[in-house]
C-alpha cells in the first residue's frame, strides 16, 4: 500500500526525527512511503491567527502538492485537523463546488499516524520495544479536533517493556494554542506549569504525545526549569528526576528493526 507522508513545516525543521520514525514505522508495516516534493506549510499558523486569505493560498498550494496522492499520513493531529476541518470551512466560504469536492476528497484520505495505524490498518502492536516509564498527554486537536480516541494509548500499551502511567487531568489543555503562546504568554505559561506539575506527579521518565507543537512548548518549560532529559532516554549523569520528551512515532519506531 502506498502512503504519502505529509511533512508538517515545524516537524520538518525542528523534529526531523519524528518524521524519520514515522517512515520507519509505516515501512515496517509494509507500506511504501512517498514524500511529495516541495512541501511547505498547510496554513494552520495563518488560519488560526486570523490571516485567512494567506491560509487560503497555502491551502490551494497544499491541494496541488497532494493532488496525485492516495492516502496521506502525518504525525501531527493539529495539521491533520487543519486539512480535515478548516480546509472544508475555507472552501465553503468561497462557494466553489469543485474546490469543495477536492477538499472533501483529500480530507477523506488524510490521517494522523495513530488513527491510521489503529483505525485504518487495524494494528496496535507495531513491534516496538521501549523499556521506560511513559506518560501520555492527549492533545486537544487529537481528542476534540479529529477524535483519535484511545488509539495512541492502544499503541503504547502494545509496546514491549513500556510502563504506561496515567497523566492526572490529562484532558486539560497544555496552554500552547499556537500563537496564543506568544500573544498571551502569561496565561500560556500558567497552563503549562500546571501540566508540567502533573507530569512530574506521574514519576514517569518519558512524556509523549501525538503533536510536537504541544511538546515543543512543554519541553521548553521543562528545559527552563532544568529537568528536561537530553540525549538518549535515561542516559547521562543525574538522569533521575529528568523527563525525556519523545513523540509517539519515535516510541513506536524504537526497538528491533527500528
Amino acid at each position, binding site marked *: 500500500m502506498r502512503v504519502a507522508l505529509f511533512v508538517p513545516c515545524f516537524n520538518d525543521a*525542528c523534529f526531523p526525527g519524528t518524521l524519520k520514525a514515522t517512515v520507519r514505522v509505516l515501512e515496517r508495516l509494509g507500506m511504501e512511503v512517498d514524500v511529495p516534493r516541495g512541501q511547505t506549510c498547510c496554513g494552520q499558523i495563518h488560519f488560526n491567527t*486570523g490571516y485567512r486569505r494567506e491560509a487560503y493560498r497555502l491551502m490551494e498550494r497544499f491541494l496541488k502538492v497532494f493532488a496525485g496522492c492516495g492516502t496521506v499520513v502525518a504525525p501531527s493531529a493539529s495539521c491533520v485537523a487543519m486539512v480535515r476541518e478548516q480546509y472544508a470551512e475555507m472552501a465553503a466560504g468561497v462557494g466553489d463546488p469543485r474546490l469543495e469536492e477536492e477538499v472533501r476528497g483529500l480530507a477523506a484520505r488524510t490521517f494522523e499516524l495513530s488513527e491510521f495505524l489503529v483505525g485504518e490498518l487495524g494494528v496496535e502492536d507495531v513491534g516496538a520495544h521501549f523499556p521506560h516509564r511513559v506518560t501520555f498527554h492527549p492533545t486537544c486537536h487529537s481528542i476534540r479536533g479529529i477524535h483519535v480516541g484511545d488509539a495512541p494509548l492502544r499503541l503504547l500499551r502494545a509496546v514491549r517493556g513500556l510502563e504506561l502511567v496515567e497523566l492526572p487531568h490529562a484532558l486539560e489543555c497544555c496552554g500552547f494554542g499556537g500563537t496564543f503562546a506568544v500573544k498571551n504568554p502569561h496565561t500560556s*505559561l500558567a497552563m503549562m506549569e500546571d501540566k508540567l506539575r502533573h507530569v512530574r506527579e506521574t514519576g514517569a521518565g518519558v512524556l509523549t504525545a501525538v503533536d510536537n507543537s504541544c511538546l515543543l512548548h512543554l519541553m521548553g518549560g521543562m528545559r527552563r526549569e532544568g529537568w528536561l532529559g537530553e540525549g538518549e532516554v535515561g542516559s547521562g549523569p543525574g538522569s533521575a528526576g529528568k523527563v525525556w520528551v519523545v513523540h509517539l512515532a519515535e516510541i513506536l519506531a524504537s526497538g528491533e528493526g527500528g
Partner: protein
Amino acid sequence: MRRGTRPGFPAAAPAALADQQLRRNLGKATTTIRAKRAAVSGEMPDWETLREAARAIKADALSNLHQYLERLEESVTRAGGAVHWAGDAVEANRIVAELAAAAGAGEVVKVKSITTDEVGLNRALEARGIVPVETDLAELIIQMAGESSSHFLVPAIHKNRTQIRDLFREHLGRPGLSDDPAELAEAARLHLRQKFLRAQVAVSGANFAVAETGTVGVVESEGNGRMCLTLPRVLITLMGIEKVLPRFQDLEVFLQLLPRSATGERMNPYTSLWTGVTPGDGPREFHLVLLDNGRTRVLADPVGRQALQCIRCSACLNICPVYERVGGHAYHAAYPGPIGSILMPQLLGPGVHDSLPFASTLCGACADVCPVKIEIPRVLLHLRARASDGTGAGSFQERWLMRILGWVFRSPFLYRLGVRTARGLLARFARDGWVHTLPGYGAGWTLGRDLPALPRESFQEWWEGRGGIP
C-alpha cells in the same frame, strides 16, 4: 480599518494570574462545578438528543426571530402585559426608569439580571433618584465590594467565604459573623426580608419568553426571584430579544439542560413561569422590555449568530482552562469566558473587545459542554479573521512576520532558504543548543520557555540527500 488589537486581555491577564487567592478560589469553585455537571449530564441517556433539539429550537428561533417576537408581543399583550422595545442601552434604561418612576417607586428590588448590568441600569436608575436594591446574594456581595461581576451565573465566584464574611461584617453591621456559608446566607435573608415585603416595583431579567403563550420564565435558586416576581405591584422584565422560544413545549428541553449545565443539579430550587397578569396573584402590572443593543448586529453574521443561542448556563466558563486561571474581570466584559469572547466583539463591533477572540487556545472543551451546541472554537477563528476581513489584525510586527512567512510558504525555494536562515539565526543565539531570549514577537515564548536550536538537517533536506531511504 483599525489596525492592531488593543492591549485588552493580554494586558489584564498577568495581574489576575499573579493573584494567588483568586486562583485558589476559581480553581476550587470550577473544579467542584465541573464534576457536578459531568455527573448530572452523564446520567442522562438522552443528553445528546436534548442538545440537538436545543440547538435546533434556538436556530429556528433566530432564523424567524421577527415573527416570533411579534407573536410574543401579541401573546403577552393578550395576557394583560405590556411590551416595550428598546433599540439600545439608553432606550432600555429610559423605559425602565420611566416605568419605575410612574409607579411612584423610590426604590426597586432587582432579581439578578446580567442584561441589566449590560445596559448599566443601576447607574441610570440612581441618576433618576431611584435606588436599585440587588436581592441576589452574589449581586449583593458585588455591590458591597464595589466591584463588577466576574461570572454571569455566579457573579461573586472570585470571592471565598472569608472575603464574603468580611464584606457582610462591614456592610450589614454584623461584626460577629462567621464565615460559615449557612450563617452568611441567613444574614442575607434577614437583611432583605423587609425589602421584599415592602417592595412596590421589581426589575427582573428572564431566561426565556415563549412566543406561543406569552409565558416568561426565570430560573433561580434563592427565592429572591419568587419574591420579586410575585410580591410587588409592578414587574418590569428586561430581556434580550434572542431569548424568545417558539413554543411552550420547547421549555421541556431547556428546563432539563439549563439546571444540569449551570449548577450541576437535576433541577434548580425555583423556576417561575408567568403569563401576563393574573388577577389576585402577583403583580397587577407587567412590562416586558425587549432589548436589541447589538443583537441584531450579531444576527447579521451567518457564522457568528450562533452565539445568540446561548442560554447563559456558564458551563463553558467553568470548563475553560483560561477562565479558570484568569477569572472574569480580565475580560472587561459583561459576559466573560468563551461565550463572552464570541458575543462581546459581535455585540459591540470592532474596537473594544478585539483581543477576546485571541484569549483562547482553541482547546474545544467549551464546545463539548455547551448545551445548545454553539461551535465556540469555530466562531473564535471566524472572528479572528473577520476583524480584518482575513488579512490579519495583529500588531505591526505580527503582520509583517505573517506576510514574510506567507511568501516563504508559497515557494519551496524560499522555504528551504527560510529554514536555513532560521537554523543559522537560532544557532548564533543558542547556548548549549537552546535559545533563552527571543526578541520582539517571540519574546513571549522565552518569558518562561527555552527554544531548541534547529537540527543540522531538516527532514526534507535529509530525504532528498538520501534519495529517499530512511
